[in-house]
């Protein structure tokens, strides 16, 4: 094909068609994303039920009661896992939403990476708060 290396915009290119296609579609790491979303969802089923039950038990609780609850090592560990899994699952889910509705490539990248940064920042803050209480600092 004599036009195989054409970019489609009337400019000749030395790049092969496969080089142009690489990295543009979902056939890159879609399966990994899909699977990670399912695994984190499965983990969140028991974690979310445990968290809601705990929060109901803490309705109207004062500071001392919440500190005592979070200082239990099992609660500390489960809360850290819950926070990490929640923000991971949220960032994966929001990415799919952006990919469906944002059709400007650079904007999609900016919003998606911005969300990932925000998720890491929020997760780190929440985990530090849990550790600070649990370790009694």
């Amino acid at each position, binding site marked *: 094909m004599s036009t195989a290396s054409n970019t489609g915009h009337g400019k000749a290119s030395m790049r092969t068609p496969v080089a142009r296609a690489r990295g543009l579609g979902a056939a890159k790491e879609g399966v990994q994303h899909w699977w990670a979303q*399912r695994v984190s969802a499965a983990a969140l*089923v028991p974690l979310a039920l445990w968290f809601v039950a705990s929060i109901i038990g803490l309705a109207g609780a004062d500071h*001392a009661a919440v*500190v005592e609850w979070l200082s239990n090592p099992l609660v500390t560990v489960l809360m850290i896992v819950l926070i990490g899994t*929640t923000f991971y699952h949220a960032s994966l889910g929001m990415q799919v939403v952006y990919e469906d509705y944002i*059709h400007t490539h650079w904007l999609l990248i900016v919003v998606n990476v911005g969300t990932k940064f925000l998720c890491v920042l*929020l997760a780190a*803050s929440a985990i530090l*708060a849990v550790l600070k209480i649990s370790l009694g600092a």
Partner: protein
Amino acid sequence: MASTERPLSPHLQIYKPQISSTLSILHRATGIALSAGTLLLVYWLVSAAAGPEAFATAQGLVGSILGRILLFGWSFALFYHLGNGIRHLAWDAGWGFELPVMHRTGWAVVIFAVAMTLIAWIVALVVLGV
């Protein structure tokens, strides 16, 4: 934008709302709401770590009328997304694609979400001693 010279499927507006599409949209909407709701969780934990005074302020906000409305919406979103998420995992395993089964599990998820939200709030109000 992609080229629009290819045939397009009909636009959303001309579809009659069905349980399948409505619950699918609700799954996405509750997912977005829960993502935003994580801000409340982070605020609650950080204020607890900051000390009794900051925590009292946070509890006051959560216990206000607006706080309780947000929390009620958050709890429904969580139970709906949880129930429908399990439905999605069942589909991923290849189970429940037949239309009658799909409609039954859809309504089951709606009933589950409403019932769990009400039970959670009744128990919470009992714990509060209201």
